[in-house]
């Protein structure tokens, strides 16, 4: 009872204290009301309402559906004219509850057609000088004759179907509406001129080697079904050249006819290996299936060089079948080296494969396949076991592009076979990244056209984890570095971008086409955000479980941003709405610092503030229960001898302890000597946790992390009282730079007179 009374009195005084402080402010006009603009408000307005297709927990709902598009394709590559010819039969299954009057097919090659509008949406500036050839191409010539030439679109009885081409999209009007469960089969015959991808940096095409041979990396090469979904209807937003793709899953039966001296690899299982492999190749392939440490060459460099001298006029047909893939790609050339090794994923063997011209050696022979294998292990650990039977890394100059089971990667030594550290790390990084895309978006099949970050950002995050793993698995590959020097992932790598000009920044939740700084916005920032969640906000255990849950829930399905956001919370019990809002929906930045530190002493003598308060209420000191008073150093009530006093000298406290506690309880009491009120400030918009490191006079340190929710009632500054047995000599906020704080000059108390980056360098060069 006594305790209760004491507590309630204190409550009254605390409340009174608050009022007292306000009374001293000038009376101002009453502020108008406002909506809930709290940074911790839940994202009900930003998120679409969960429904039968997509559940509130972030998983596919009970009525979730996705369309299916199965392809049978017969392809012929003409190496002389660099043309690709194809006939494809698409069987489309409508699993949606809707009736479809038409189908949309993507004609991505049309981005390079003469009537393409892609150039027209780009502003341009005059450059001081241009190569004559490029000038002609740009201003005088007709330009490259790219784009699909459609020979026919027929139904399965060979009768022409009406179709309409709107640039990179083709609408096919079906004779009878497709009802739920209906399948519709139709065929398209097409061809196109393959572009030189080294000139216009297309995502696919050929590279002409110095010996005149072409290396083909072929993708977006066939009319592809668009996605029809519960959120977009048809995703038929035009392909302008930058935003990537949205594609339904399906099974592919593909035959590819190429010159008989070509080496070819592609999405899917090779069905006629014995027909296209020599006996030697078969033997080497069998050896590769049992080699887990070193790749085995199927085609050697000498064999590739020898083949490069010829030009076969006969052809060979390679047959593939791929199940449950969203896309198809292949690489073909007589100038290809080929190596493979096995990697254990769960209880299955997957083949890690590399295809590269001699120009890639020695780098490619030494590392590509090992990087592929290491990447598959890391991604499988973070998400789910790699479900396909192989992963191929093809070397193509300047390329970094991904398809199911196959990707194109850059990283080329000079003519003497020398390469810089940057070339090497560029190659490691791009292989890890592009092989990683097998997971996002090839299997966790998000809509790239709309949400670049869902594949690029999430993939760049896992890429960081895989890079670190690779460095640990192959220390000789990264020596003399101790850890893999990742360009993206750690929080401080995004600081320069987030400190930048707000006019040239878009939230991550922006269609990729319309962002300013693509690399930072769609790759780096989301990757850093997830890394901050994993390392700082959620911790690895909770994060990894939730991230795995998301990956497995949406494996072979089409997730949306909310599905990711919701799953991460649902599987971890960490409310992250504030983080999603700040990091993904705004261009806010982190800036947290120590504003002020006040030192207090404890006394039983009433201080001025309380005296004035009770006098104003006509009370006397004897009306109060025994109180303990805090006096700020240097204030009116402060007396020098308070500094040397201990809690034993505070009579009100001692009396209370003696009257209310047993000797055993008393023995357990701590005896703090130093009392501080620390004010943290937050000039930045993002409410990050405050990671405070306290250094004591004896040199020891203690780190306390105050969760981000500490900012929920005051977005600008917050106080914290610390009672300590030792004197605090230093406070540093975010000492390991893990929150992407854009201004660290306010992160220390006492203000660190630290030698900045500039003066450090100046000191360094002074002596030279």
């Amino acid at each position, binding site marked *: 009872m006594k305790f209760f009374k004491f507590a309630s009195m204190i409550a009254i005084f605390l409340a009174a204290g608050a009022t007292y402080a306000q009374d001293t402010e000038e009376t101002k006009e009453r502020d108008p009301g406002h909506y809930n603009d709290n940074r911790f408000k839940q994202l009900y307005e930003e998120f679409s309402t969960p429904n039968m297709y997509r559940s509130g927990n972030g998983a596919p709902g009970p009525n979730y559906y996705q369309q299916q598009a199965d392809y049978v394709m017969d392809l012929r590559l003409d190496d002389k004219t660099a043309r690709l010819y194809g006939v494809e039969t698409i069987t489309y299954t409508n699993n949606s509850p809707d009736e479809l009057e038409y189908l949309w097919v993507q004609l991505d090659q049309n981005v390079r057609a003469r009537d393409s509008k*892609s150039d027209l949406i780009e502003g341009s500036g005059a*450059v001081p000088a241009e190569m004559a050839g490029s000038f002609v191409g740009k201003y005088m010539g007709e330009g490259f004759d790219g784009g699909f030439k459609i020979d026919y679109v027929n139904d399965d009885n060979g009768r022409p179907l009406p179709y309409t081409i709107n640039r990179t999209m083709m609408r096919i009007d079906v004779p009878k509406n497709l009802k739920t469960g209906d399948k519709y089969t139709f065929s398209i015959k097409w061809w196109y001129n393959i572009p030189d991808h080294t000139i216009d940096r297309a995502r696919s095409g050929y590279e002409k080697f110095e010996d005149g041979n072409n290396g083909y990396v072929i993708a977006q090469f066939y009319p592809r079904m668009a996605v029809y979904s519960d959120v977009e209807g048809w995703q038929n937003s035009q392909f302008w050249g930058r935003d990537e793709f949205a594609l339904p899953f399906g099974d592919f039966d593909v035959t590819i006819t190429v010159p008989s001296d070509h080496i070819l690899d592609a999405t899917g299982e090779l069905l006629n290996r014995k027909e296209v492999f020599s006996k030697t190749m078969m033997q080497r392939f069998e050896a590769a299936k049992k080699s887990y440490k070193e790749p085995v060459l199927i085609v050697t460099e000498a064999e590739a060089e020898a083949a490069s001298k010829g030009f076969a006029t006969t052809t060979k047909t390679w047959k593939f079948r791929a199940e449950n893939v969203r896309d198809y790609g292949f690489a073909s050339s007589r100038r290809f080296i080929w190596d493979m090794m096995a990697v254990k994923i769960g209880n299955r063997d997957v083949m890690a494969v590399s295809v590269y011209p001699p120009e890639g050696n020695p780098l490619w022979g030494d590392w590509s396949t090992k990087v592929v294998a290491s990447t598959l292990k890391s991604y499988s650990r973070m998400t789910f076991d790699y479900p396909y039977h192989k992963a191929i890394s093809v070397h193509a100059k300047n390329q970094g592009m991904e398809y199911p089971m196959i990707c194109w990667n850059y990283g080329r030594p000079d003519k003497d076979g020398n390469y810089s550290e940057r070339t090497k790390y*560029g190659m490691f990084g791009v292989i890890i990244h592009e092989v990683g895309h097998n997971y996002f978006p090839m299997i966790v099949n998000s809509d790239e056209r709309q949400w670049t970050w869902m594949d690029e950002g999430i993939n760049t995050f896992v890429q960081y984890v895989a890079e670190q793993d690779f460095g640990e698995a192959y220390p000789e590959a990264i020596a003399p570095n101790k850890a893999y020097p990742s360009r993206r992932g750690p929080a401080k790598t995004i600081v320069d971008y987030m400190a930048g000009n707000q006019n040239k920044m878009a939230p991550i939740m922006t269609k990729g086409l319309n962002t300013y700084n693509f690399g930072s916005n769609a790759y780096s920032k989301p990757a850093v955000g997830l890394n901050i969640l994993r390392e700082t906000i959620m911790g690895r255990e909770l994060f990894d479980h939730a991230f795995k849950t998301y990956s497995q829930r949406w494996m072979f399905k089409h997730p949306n941003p909310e599905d990711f956001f919701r799953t991460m919370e649902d599987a971890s019990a960490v409310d992250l709405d504030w983080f999603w809002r700040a990091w993904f929906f705004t261009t806010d930045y982190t800036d947290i610092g120590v504003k002020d530190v006040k030192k207090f002493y404890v006394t039983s003598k009433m201080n001025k503030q309380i005296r004035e308060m009770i006098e104003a209420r006509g009370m006397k000191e004897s009306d109060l229960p025994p109180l303990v008073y805090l006096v700020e150093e240097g204030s009116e009530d402060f007396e020098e001898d308070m500094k040397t006093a201990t809690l034993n000298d505070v009579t009100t406290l001692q009396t209370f302890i003696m009257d209310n506690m047993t000797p055993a309880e008393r023995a357990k009491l701590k005896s703090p000597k130093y009392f501080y009120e620390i004010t943290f400030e937050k000039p930045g918009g993002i409410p990050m946790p405050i990671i405070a490191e306290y250094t004591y006079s004896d040199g020891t340190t203690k780190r306390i992390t105050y969760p981000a929710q500490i900012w929920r009632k005051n977005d600008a500054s917050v106080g914290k009282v610390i009672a300590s047995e030792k004197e605090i000599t230093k406070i540093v906020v975010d000492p390991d730079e893990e929150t992407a704080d854009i201004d660290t000059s306010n992160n220390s108390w006492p203000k660190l007179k630290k030698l900045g980056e500039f003066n450090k*360098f100046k000191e360094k060069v002074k002596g030279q």
Partner: protein
Amino acid sequence: MKLLRITFLLVILSTTLSFTAHKFYVSITKVEFSQEESSLQIISKLFIDDIEDVLQTRYNPSLVMGGEKETEAVGKFLKEYVLQKLVIEVNGKPVTLHYLGHEYDNDVVKTYLEVKGVSELNSISVENKMLMELFEEQQNIIHVKRFKKRKSLVLEADNPKGLLNFN
């Protein structure tokens, strides 16, 4: 020569269809006013790949930046290039940039410059044309800090110069 030509072509044609999983053309220059030292302290960060391409094109196709293969000439070229492309006016008057040197940090090269004798910073105009002759999409971001105030510019080929007022 062929390599050079291809690089040059690639760069000029790289505008609209560039997508890659990795490439974006950006540099960051931080300018900080130091009252204590009456100076502007400037750190300009460039991607090594990009500046190497530029220096190779201008000076020597076989030069290498960073590591043991970097010759002294590289430092000279870099200095000459940076001083030619970066022009600063303080309070309406052109100032002299003192080049202190360069160092590497991962895939970035940082060059250090100083403007001496700046007792007050009311306005600053920065023209930064670095890398723009090769990369049409190049964005040179300038951050200027005067005490607690920060201001930024984004300079592009068609607008390579900007003015910031601090009053």
